[in-house]
């Protein structure tokens, strides 16, 4: 019997706290055996000064909630949390958090990987890069490797979810 809490989905400018988010998923429960997390951070590649993230208020939260609900159907999760930051983020700053909790470790680990792979390809966010050398700015283009990472979940499950 796995009782799943509704997925927690937030898009915000503020940082998030990994311990607090993890504690919220397990508070008062004794059926959680595994919590997996993924934090994506801003790297200082190639003279990057900052990433500026934009989203589609309303649609972005709905799309993430849909993906999270699908994860809760595919794996026996007791809960999951997705927090995605927007605005100007500098190298070293965390951008996105995915947390999944389950009685079993494989479910937590796999659903966490599934969610971040889908966030890369399916959630309405756009990233602009600003550089230290006055090169101006550049919109990040979608990557074929991200599409491939997301596609492997559909291939494994026969799912066509976005």
């Amino acid at each position, binding site marked *: 019997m796995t009782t799943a809490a509704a997925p927690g989905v937030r898009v915000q400018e503020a940082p998030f706290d990994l311990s607090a988010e993890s504690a919220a998923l397990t508070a008062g429960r004794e059926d959680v055996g595994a919590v997996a997390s993924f934090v*994506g951070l801003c790297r200082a590649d190639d003279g990057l000064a900052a990433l500026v993230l*934009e989203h*589609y208020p*309303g*649609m972005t939260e*709905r799309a993430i909630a849909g993906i999270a609900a699908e994860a809760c159907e595919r794996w026996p999760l007791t809960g999951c949390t997705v927090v*995605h930051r927007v605005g100007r983020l500098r190298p070293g700053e965390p*951008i*996105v958090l995915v947390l999944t909790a389950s009685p079993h470790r494989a479910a937590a680990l796999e659903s966490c990987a599934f969610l*971040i792979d889908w*966030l*890369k*390809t*399916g*959630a*309405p*966010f*756009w*990233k*602009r890069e600003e550089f230290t050398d006055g090169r101006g700015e550049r*919109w*990040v*283009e*979608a*990557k074929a490797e*991200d599409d491939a990472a997301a596609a492997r979940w559909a291939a494994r499950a026969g799912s066509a979810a*976005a």
Partner: protein
Amino acid sequence: MQVLYFAWVRQKVGVGAEEVAPPPDVADVAGLMRWLSGRSPGHAAAFANAGAIRAAVNQDFAAPDRRLSPGDEVAFFPPVTGG
């Protein structure tokens, strides 16, 4: 009809949102993109390569042949780059 633009589509068009009233023969997403292209040089630049643009209707991803109704919220943006 409310139309929203994001990322470089927004930058090229010059605004993030606008209220438009396309003529009745603008029936689907692809037709709306063609009609919007004629509104200004910025719109024309934004929609010059229609294949590089994705759309959503009422906050769901939508294909070019998605039919439109007057009250729809339609958004145009580049392929997403989240995470």
